Each structure stands twice: as C-alpha cells, then as structure tokens.
C-alpha cells in the first residue's frame, strides 16, 4: 500500500527531504503530494531560500581575549 501524506505531514518532512535522508517510498509520497499542492511547494521553496540566506551569514569573530588565551595555550605547548 502506498503512503498518502497531507500538508501537516509534509511540512515536517521538508528538512529530511532536502537533505536526501528519506527512504524511497516516503520520498515518492512527498513528491506526489508536492506535485499537487501549491501551499507545500511554496513552503518548500521558502525553506530552500531560507537555507541559502542563512548561508550568507558570517560566523562570530574570535575576540581579543580569546585570542590571548589561545596564544598562551600555544606558547605553553611550544615550550613544553
């Protein structure tokens, strides 16, 4: 018997779907749903876009104190 998903199920599977982590039958059922559902297709595209936007962020910089702590640690190692 093939699976049938409703929107409420599909939105919870989007990350697993995008990461290619769904078993084949579940993936197929998600794709069947998406092909007939504009709402879920929109949310999927917005997830993709959100991921792309998140990828534009920079990570925090290393602070001056932190750099000092690390320098100390490396110095200890070099002189040990």
């Amino acid at each position, binding site marked *: 018997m093939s699976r049938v998903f*409703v*929107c*409420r*199920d599909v*939105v*919870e599977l*989007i*990350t*697993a779907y995008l*990461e290619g*982590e769904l078993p084949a039958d579940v993936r197929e059922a998600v794709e069947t749903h998406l092909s007939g*559902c504009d*709402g*879920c297709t*929109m*949310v999927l*595209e*917005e*997830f993709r*876009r*959100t*991921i792309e*936007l*998140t*990828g*534009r*962020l*920079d*990570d*925090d*910089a*290393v602070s001056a*104190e*932190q750099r000092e*702590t*690390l320098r*100390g*640690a*490396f110095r*200890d*190692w070099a002189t040990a």
Partner: protein
Amino acid sequence: MELVEKLTPSMRRVARMFVSSDATADDVVGEAWLGVLQGIDGYEGRASLRTWIFRILVNIAKTRGQKESRSVPFATLAGDDLEQPTFDPTAFDTTGHWSTLPFDWRGLPEDRVTAGETLAVIRRTIDDLPPLQAEVIRLHDVLGWSSEEVRNALEITDTNQRVLLHRARAKVRAAVEEHLGSVSA
C-alpha cells in the same frame, strides 16, 4: 591558524553549553586546541578533522562541567518543544490540509529579500534558539558541515540532528516571513 580562527567561535559556544561562564569556556577551548596539537599524531582520519577536534572539545567541556557540578538537561540545550509540530496547527484544517497559507514572499524583489535587515533577522533568530538548535543550524547551514559531521561533533543521534535542524530552519523561515510580510505590508 586559519583553522583555529574558523573553528574557535563555534567551539566556544559549544563549550559554553557545558560550563558555567564564558571565561571557563575560553579555557576549555584553549585546552582543546592543546589536546589537538598533542594528539594530532593519533588522528587516523576516520572522522573529518573538524569533527575529531570537536570530540576532543566536547569531552573536555563535559568533564569540566561535571567538576563544576553543572549538569544541564538535554531539554534545556535542545529546547523542550521537540515533540511539538513545527508549524502552527491552526494553519491546517481537520483533515491536515492548509486552511491558512503562510505569506508568500517568493515574488518579492530580490534586493528586499536579501537586504542586510533580513540577514540581521536571521542572525537574531538563531541567537535566540535553544543552544543546541542554534549550533546545529550554524554548523550545517552557516558553515556548511554535513549532517554526519554535525551529529558526530555534537554527539547527538541522526534523528536528533534532523529534528533540531528542521526546527531551527522552520523558526528562521517563519521569522523571515514575518519580517518580509511586515516590510511589504
């Protein structure tokens, strides 16, 4: 040194999950890098280098946390909402289909979507997530680590990794939607 610059900010945040102060977290990061230098000959390449470095870090941070008698429940780190649906249940009718669709921001002008303000909203939203959700999305989507690297580095199961990532992304998507909906209204 490039690797040190690159990994230290996330190492510090991960250490901070287990220990009680920023200063102790800095210490833990220093100790971890020392451990890396001393142990690098034993690195067998079975995990990626950055995953291996994080394993060393997490071990040291956990030990330090235990010494401080600080025990942080998983739910505090991961968020206590993991069992809840990610989307507002009232958006769906009783059959589970959309009753209220989210705001469609796909057609907005590109420069509005990618404006610095949108990125600031994303950053703030991530900063406000429970620490483990925040770190999973940072490592995976900001720094581009694979799911496997993230789960090994943070010592979480693949299910937890996926759930945490999905929840984090859903909150970021919702925040972007709210932001773009308000500026285009």
